[in-house]
């Protein structure tokens, strides 16, 4: 079963608008990570937030983490057509022997020029 569930499954916005994607998970975590996947390509890491952090920024990206609600959000500000991609959250659980990640189903973002 998937640890993370993303919402919405698909999002279509105009260039310049902000895009917000949400992720919920079920068990306690060490960290939560966001990845991006362009069509037909491998995943690329965007940002990692540790369980003791509440917010993190990287360029136009802002990630929040609420461990009491077991949820995270990814905000992309001032979106560009090049941001069109699928975005996945992934959780690294506590007591995880393999430092394995469990991925959500992803949000497909389309940014229209």
């Amino acid at each position, binding site marked *: 079963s998937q640890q993370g569930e993303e919402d919405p499954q698909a999002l279509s916005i105009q260039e310049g608008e902000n895009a917000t994607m949400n992720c919920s998970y079920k068990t306690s975590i060490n960290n939560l990570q966001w990845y991006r996947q362009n069509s037909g*390509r491998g995943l690329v890491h965007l940002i990692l937030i540790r369980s003791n952090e509440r917010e993190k920024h990287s360029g136009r990206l802002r990630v929040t983490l609420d461990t009491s609600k077991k949820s995270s959000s990814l905000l992309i500000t001032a979106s560009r057509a090049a941001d069109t991609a699928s975005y996945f959250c992934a959780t690294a659980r506590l007591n995880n022997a393999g430092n394995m990640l469990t991925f959500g*189903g992803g949000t497909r973002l389309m940014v229209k020029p």
Partner: protein
Amino acid sequence: IAGITQAPTSQILAAGRRMTLRCTQDMRHNAMYWYRQDLGLGLRLIHYSNTAGTTGKGEVPDGYSVSRANTDDFPLTLASAVPSQTSVYFCASKPHGTHNEQFFGPGTRLTVL
């Protein structure tokens, strides 16, 4: 080689045939992973290896085997392919440490007829 590579890029395979997907990284990462990605299901972990000489089962290991003879290579073998193994397969690696990202290869698109 720069980063993590996979071969072949794509393959069409008859059911019942044996197939090995190759994965090589030159980053000296300790951990390596194999995922499959199916539409709407995100990525699911097949097998992992924390370090050379050790392997472990992920979420969907049945029908697959792996080996880790050295740090760089982590091949995935389908002993007798079945149509349900049609998928896109991604290899990933990660340096030692809990709060590190995974680096993904470009993927292998496998079709089993």
